[in-house]
């Protein structure tokens, strides 16, 4: 049934499509014949790593995904969690790594657009975005341009579409020189009984295409671009990157949410990776139905599109809906009022097959299930990297002690990984929708919840996205546990209770046993930490093949945590607010310099074991922080993470609008550099006018706590038990270095813009 002019379909063509010989044999078996050209396209995208999760599925299945508040776990467009009073949050994080490296602005922009659609598809109004972005060293002009492009793209899309970007993380490391990471998170709010799923149910119901017209952009973006390593042909793949139109997305959001207030929509899914193909197959598969579709009806913006192109295009801002029979007109009218195309392209059938016609001829006739739900699953071989044990060796006795702690602190503040990211986030609308209680720059963002009718509630959501890739490179399991623990601790520092998480697993080529081992270990760590902290994994995304010329990125399992604070009016902040407050250190300092920023920056060493995490302690710490905030005993709570205690204290001093100095006397016993820059987990700097209630509550919750100093003056002064100060610097100087870290590096390559910023 090859259409005229199509190439003969054989094993060679299948291989060009990224299919293996085994998969080709399976296709022949499923169909009982050779596929048409269009069918081959369908199989290649549906069975691509990006769409099928074939390398990770068998491991992901072991994750804890349930909880009494979980309304929807992985498998839908996004996860959903109840937050009480009939409300729910819908959230997910997703990668757009490969496209962003090739075309940073559009790659990042469409990453934001895609994750927004995953959220409003479920009936939720998107209210807040986060981004986790990682680049090569910033002294490389290419990576300066990538940073500019990615930030421009995130702002261009998010600002125009009217969803606040309230936080995120940015880091720089040699391992991302060949593959940058762009992970976009979005969260929306919905009435819990109005969550829509991607189901094509109800035989005879109309299938409606809505949104932008279909063009040739993004064909094989998911299958060929995101499911293979980079090499010298990568530049030629630029046409696989899609182009974003945030104005259309904004209209699509409003039209969909308006429709979903009524009862005409049965199921709905966005056309993301693999476009019309993936959305129709997944919707039919979930409902156990089939779909027949007529491609001649698909709105298009390019002439002479072939059925292959129509099925595989990844043109953005498109949705596929199943409506109640007889309500076609009413549904289409809503889209038309928002200036959007909407047409009936097919019907739901009961025979479990996908039948697609073009010019009166059947071009696809495939059983749905073997392509979608029963796609290939691989248990790829995994092997611990041979050099891992070597990497983990660190004899601290042979590491020269820090000779100048103040210089080390200034070096950390001047490092782009720790310097202020204000240059980035002032390009994002952090305020639209009017809910931003705490924006970027602190431990977690805090966003007030309104109902769809605009009624404000006393609920707020705390959001944080975290990962320390160096830890994960040294020990993927321990590193992932640390990422979950840090994300939860950040959320807890506002006073919120961590509820659930989403994750984006960024790794190299899974066909290599060492990479597969990293992935398997990371997933094991993710599951262990999520279970111990009572924060189920409700959604996620896997991005593999982040490799160029065989050099992989560090394993980067990005974790985004969502917490709930109610009432939100009493929350803690992550900086000192006034002089005369007692400073209390929660948690314990250990001699843990393995994998630390200090060791990398000051000694050029990336070695050792990452700091260990006591998940039971973390849970007690969450309880303590929530209690102290609820009782109004806590003004400041700031997580101590990479960079250690000295960096965290400096951040407390200049984190607010006004500088606040501090005088600290730390407990002795450890080598000074370990005390100042060690990265022991489970620690929080707390401050309030009165230390006694904090110490009493900490005793009851069995969290180690001790008074370590007071806020005072305009200098940060850190000493140990009566010694001469190790660090004694004006806060204004620390702030100046911190604030210039990014702009001074970008000034050289910019249009002179940053010189005035």
């Amino acid at each position, binding site marked *: 049934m090859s259409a005229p002019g199509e190439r003969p379909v054989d094993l060679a063509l299948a291989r060009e499509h990224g299919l293996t010989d085994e998969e080709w044999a399976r296709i022949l078996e499923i169909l009982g014949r050779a596929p048409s050209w269009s069918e081959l396209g369908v199989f290649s995208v549906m069975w691509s790593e990006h769409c099928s999760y074939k390398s990770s599925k068998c491991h992901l299945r072991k994750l804890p995904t349930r909880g009494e508040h979980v309304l929807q776990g992985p498998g839908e467009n996004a996860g959903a969690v109840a937050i009480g009073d009939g409300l729910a949050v819908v959230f997910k994080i997703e990668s757009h790594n490969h496209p962003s490296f090739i075309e940073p602005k559009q790659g990042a922009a469409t990453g934001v657009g895609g994750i927004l659609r995953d959220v409003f598809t479920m009936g939720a109004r998107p209210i807040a975005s986060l981004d986790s972005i990682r680049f090569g060293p910033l002294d490389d002009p290419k990576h300066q341009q990538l940073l500019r492009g990615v930030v421009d793209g995130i702002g261009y899309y998010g600002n125009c579409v*009217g969803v606040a970007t309230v936080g995120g993380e940015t880091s720089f490391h040699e391992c991302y020189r060949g593959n940058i990471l762009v992970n976009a998170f979005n969260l929306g709010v919905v009435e819990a009984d109005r969550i829509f799923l991607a189901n094509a149910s109800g035989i005879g119901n109309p299938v409606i295409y809505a949104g932008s017209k279909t063009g040739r952009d993004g064909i094989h973006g998911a299958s060929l671009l995101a499911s293979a390593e980079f090499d010298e042909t990568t530049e030629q793949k630029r046409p696989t990157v899609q182009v974003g139109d945030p*104005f259309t997305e904004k209209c699509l959001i409003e039209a969909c949410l308006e429709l979903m207030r009524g009862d005409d929509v049965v199921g709905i899914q966005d056309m993301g990776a693999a476009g019309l193909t993936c959305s129709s197959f997944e919707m039919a598969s979930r409902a156990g139905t089939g779909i027949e579709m007529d491609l001649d009806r698909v709105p298009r913006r390019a002439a002479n599109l072939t059925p292959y192109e129509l099925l595989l295009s990844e043109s953005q801002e498109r949705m596929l809906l199943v409506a109640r029979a007889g309500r076609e007109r009413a549904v289409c009218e809503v889209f038309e009022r928002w200036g959007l195309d909407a047409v009936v392209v097919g019907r739901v059938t009961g025979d479990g097959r996908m039948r697609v016609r073009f010019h009166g001829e059947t071009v696809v006739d495939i059983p749905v299930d073997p392509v979608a739900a029963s796609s290939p699953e691989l248990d790829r071989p995994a092997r611990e990297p041979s050099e891992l044990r070597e990497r983990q060796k660190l004899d601290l006795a042979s590491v020269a002690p820090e000779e100048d702690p103040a210089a080390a602190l200034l070096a950390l503040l001047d490092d782009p990984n720790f310097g202020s990211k204000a240059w980035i986030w002032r390009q994002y*609308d952090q305020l639209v929708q009017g809910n931003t209680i705490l924006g970027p720059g602190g431990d977690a963002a805090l966003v007030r919840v*309104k109902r769809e009718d*605009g009624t404000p509630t006393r609920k707020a959501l705390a959001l944080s996205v975290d990962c320390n890739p160096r830890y994960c490179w040294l020990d993927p399991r321990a590193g992932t546990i640390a990422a979950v623990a840090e994300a939860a601790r950040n959320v807890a520092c506002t006073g919120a209770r961590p509820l659930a998480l989403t994750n984006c697993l960024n790794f190299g080529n899974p066909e290599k046993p060492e990479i597969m081992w990293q992935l398997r270990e990371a997933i094991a760590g993710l599951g262990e930490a999520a279970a111990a902290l009572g924060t189920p994994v409700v959604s996620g995304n896997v991005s593999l093949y982040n490799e160029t010329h065989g050099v992989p990125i560090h394993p980067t399992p990005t974790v985004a945590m969502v917490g709930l604070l109610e009432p939100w009016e009493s929350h803690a902040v992550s900086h000192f607010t006034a002089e005369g407050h007692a400073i209390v250190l929660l948690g314990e300092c250990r001699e843990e310099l393995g994998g630390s920023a200090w060791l990398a920056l000051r000694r050029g060493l990336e070695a050792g074991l990452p700091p260990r995490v006591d998940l039971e302690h973390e849970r007690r710490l969450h309880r303590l922080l929530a209690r102290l905030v609820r009782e109004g005993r806590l003004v400041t709570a700031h997580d101590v993470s990479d960079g250690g205690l000295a960096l965290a204290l400096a951040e407390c001093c200049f984190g607010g609008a006004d500088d606040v100095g501090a005088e600290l006397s730390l407990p002795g016993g450890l080598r000074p550099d370990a005390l100042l820059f060690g990265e022991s987990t489970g620690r929080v700097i707390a401050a309030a006018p009165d230390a006694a209630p904090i110490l009493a509550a900490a005793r009851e919750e069995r969290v180690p706590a001790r008074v370590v100093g007071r806020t005072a003056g305009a200098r940060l002064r850190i000493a140990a038990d009566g010694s001469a100060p190790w660090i004694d610097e004006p806060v204004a100087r620390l702030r100046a270095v911190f604030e210039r870290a990014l702009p001074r590096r970008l000034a050289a390559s910019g249009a002179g813009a940053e010189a005035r910023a």
Partner: protein
Amino acid sequence: MFAVLQFPGSNDDRDMHFAMKSVLGADARLVWHAESELPAGTRAVLLPGGFSYGDYLRCGAMARFSPVMGAVRRFAEAGGPVLGTCNGFQVLCEAGLLPGVLRRNRDLHFVCEFVHVRVEQAAPPFTSRARAGQVLRLPVKHGEGAYTASAADLEQLEANGQVVLRYCDAEGRVGGAANPNGALHDIAGIRNPAGNVFGLMPHPEHAVEGRIGGLDGALLLGSLLDFVRAGGAAR
């Protein structure tokens, strides 16, 4: 009744509606751009921020052709108070209801941050709750916010006292880095000669709740509310 216009691509429409209705307790309604008349009983018109029609052309250049803008012009000519923030300010300039234009920011970047503005004219209908010289803290968020006008227009704005808000530092000092976008004469907000049409780049609707953005925005929106409640500008 306060009519909050809603263009395709408006983003702060719901926020302005929320500020007027839920926070300040006014009777406010969203009005779709395709309406050719304002609802009966409209006492003030608010043009919200956002990206009308995506702002893929010059900001506000498309929205000025929306059917509702004819009604807004008639309303303004009859003396009715009209307030435009951010994209709304851009639309008012494009529609010729205010002089000048908003150009790309000096550093070519979108900028979102809290800034200070000095109240230059404290008078109804928009600034009666403030006093002249008072410094307000309000957020801006725009890519095209650099107010620009001909020398003659600027001279006239200054001579007539039409400059309502000027960027300044926390102490009220105008000039230099206190200006976030390169606006000429540090202009953050202006009114027309009759004083009933007011455009500003900062977002008062995002500063009405105290713990979320402060309260200084309520001084501006509250002034308009006072004016309407006092029976100002009946149509």
